[in-house]
């Protein structure tokens, strides 16, 4: 198919046997490390109830502010709750909110972007409203949305999803415009193919790759965004463990028990790092010029 060729052409035809995309990906060191890191985190999150040494909400009044020990590997917090167990459970919330928010933004954003690129009449309207959203101070917008809906995971998902929508609208619009101008689309239209058919068969496959790459990048920022919201008390609610909330609760006792603040921050950095590694690797694999330089 012509449309598939579009994607394939981004892979250089260097060697005799063309390596598959995923092979290239895992040959990339960053890709491999990022993948292993992310799989580990997802594993810890999914199997938290079996792996975590304690129930994350269980309070051990006698062991409050405990420094890291054999009983509590990463110490305990104000209530004597095990920080390690809370981090495992918090991985779940962070991943869930980030994925759900990015999926929301991808669906809504690329729909709007494709519509803007495909239907000329809608273009100005959609893209101008995206411009307005872009210009809006994002964190204030997200805070306002959360305040309207009340703190909680769902509000955080919606707030981040809405804020990220214009990004994907822009990413989707470019390739749509480009593909639409090409001969085969005009031919298909001439042969009486409906808009939905053209979009599904010809445009979507071309939009998919840049959207996918962008999603990896935005997953990293969505994790940071979620942690910032819950740090400000606008994310998921206690007693659920959430990394930003753990830091904001821990910071009041910073000099007394720094571990309650330090480790959740390291945990956030690890998730974000894994997505950043994957994003880097993906860009390097898909962009031949970059790959040559990285060697």
């Amino acid at each position: 198919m012509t449309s598939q060729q579009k994607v394939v052409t981004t892979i250089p035809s260097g060697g005799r046997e063309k390596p598959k995309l995923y092979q290239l990906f895992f040959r990339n060191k960053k890709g491999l490390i990022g993948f292993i890191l992310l799989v580990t985190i997802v594993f810890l999150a999914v199997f938290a109830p079996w792996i975590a040494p304690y129930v994350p909400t269980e309070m051990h009044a006698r062991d409050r502010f405990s420094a890291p020990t054999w009983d509590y590997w990463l110490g305990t917090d104000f209530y004597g709750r095990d920080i390690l167990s809370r981090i495992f459970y918090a991985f779940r919330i962070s991943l869930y909110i980030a994925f759900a928010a990015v999926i929301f933004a991808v669906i809504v954003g690329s729909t709007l972007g494709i519509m803007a690129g495909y239907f000329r009449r809608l273009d100005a309207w959609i893209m101008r409203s995206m411009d307005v959203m872009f210009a809006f101070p994002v964190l204030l917008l997200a805070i306002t949305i959360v305040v309207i809906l009340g703190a909680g995971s769902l509000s955080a998902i919606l707030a981040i999803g809405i804020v990220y929508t214009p990004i994907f609208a822009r990413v989707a619009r470019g390739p749509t415009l480009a593909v639409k101008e090409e001969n085969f689309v005009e031919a298909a239209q001439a042969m009486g193919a409906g808009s939905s058919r053209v979009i599904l068969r010809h445009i979507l496959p071309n939009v998919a790759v840049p959207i996918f790459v962008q999603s990896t990048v935005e997953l990293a920022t969505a994790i940071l965004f979620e942690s910032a919201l819950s740090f400000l008390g606008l994310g998921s609610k206690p007693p659920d463990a959430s990394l930003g909330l753990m830091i904001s609760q821990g910071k009041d006792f910073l000099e007394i028990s720094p571990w309650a603040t330090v480790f959740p921050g390291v945990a956030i950095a690890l998730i974000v790092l894994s997505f950043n590694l994957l994003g880097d690797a993906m860009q390097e694999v898909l962009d031949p010029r970059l790959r040559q330089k990285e060697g």
Partner: protein
Amino acid sequence: MISQRFFRAIFFAVLALSLVFSGLEAQSQDDNVLRVGITQQIINLDPHVATAFSSFRVMEQVYEGLMRFDSDSALQPALAESFDVSDDGLTYTFNLRSGVTFHDGSPFTANDVKFSFDRVLNPDTASPQASRINSIGSIDVISDTQVSFTLSEAFSPFLSALPQIFIVPQDFATKVSNPQVATLGTGPFQLDELGPDFASLSKNESYWEAGLPKLDGVLIRQIPEAATLRSALRTGQIDVIFGFGVDVISAGSFAGVPGFNVISTPGLSYSLLGIQNDREPFTDVRVRQALSLAIDRQELAEIVYFGRAVVAAPLAASVTEFGPLSSGQLANYERDIPAAQALLADAGQENLTFTISPLPTVPEAVQIAEVLQQQFEQAGITTELELIDIATWVDNWRNSNFDTFVSLNGGNPDPDIHLNRHLVTGGSTNVFKFSDPEVDSLLADGRLVSGLNDRVEIYNQLQQRIADQVPFLFLNYAEVFAVMSSDVQDFTLRADQSIASIRGASLNR
């Protein structure tokens, strides 16, 4: 090679920068200005409208009432020198202090008193203090130094309401165009500047109390994070910290540290679990009693306040003159999970589930909610925390739109001011929709009777009735703390966290 040269350049740049920075010492400080740190933002200084903790800390330095509470919360005359009460308890005549001037030099007279009370009572002012003095029938200026109030009905807590009614000059409206940001009072300090995160005050040179204030000025600075506030004190950038966020953790981290003093006093404000009495299933008194029996207030005090709090009976133990009962003398205070479950079974509420909505601006409210959630779970009661922002919370609170909430109620040494408006049917802060004829009549009796012994008898009965009916759960009275550098002398903290004592404090740097 370029990279070597480059490294060297960076190295020297960093070195130079750090030398510049380390050469700079903390800014020169005014030696006799006390720097006070609090976590709450200072907004709105209108003496008759502002209600915030931080507003009061500034206003109590600038403004004064006819009466004031001393550091032991006992009523003392302030702008009034003395007063007489008529035998029927309806007429209060005050003899005013002479020679007192406002900060602009104009003299303080009885007309200013009348103007101030009228301003509070005027509906256009929208003063929250109005409900405390609306028993006033008429105010008569007898002479420049004498004013009398005639009440429409006997009201024994009248004098206790007076410290909160600040006196402003009669031409306040023309002299102060925006009382939210500017002030004009008779207090020991006057406001120089209200900045984005500070209020700077300077000495009132012609203050009426001889030799006071001892300080040249006070700088009240807001630092929102408790940990940062402590660090600022530790590094000498602040002299005293107290108020929200300065708790037993702060006290503990400075206890025994040379160069710092920690003071504490039993507080008058109490934490509570508010219950919507008009919402199923809390209409059933057995359910409310079960909630009271299901929790362990002592454990709560241990966890949230590290033991520096006591189980809260309706009256604070510190107001000894009104005969406060201890929790041991009251029903439904000792934790008893089987009894709680039996009551719930009686009421047909074996699977009781409800939400708890902690006041978002006070960190300990969330902590209390989290501990209560655990305790309820041990008694088989399922709860969910609801976290909402402060304006939404207050809106829900005002409209009684909650199952239960956790917050703090500011206390008062007078039992009527302490309890009445929360408990009387239709009371202004009776958001619990609690209504009990016996409680209502006891509260009314307490206002009409003026002899102390009679009031004690009435309030004893009232406390028993409250414990039995469980309008909401009184949880803990926590100690309040202030931590200060040892340079600070004679700084005391009152049970209601007032720092009016600053007028007698001094610095010895």
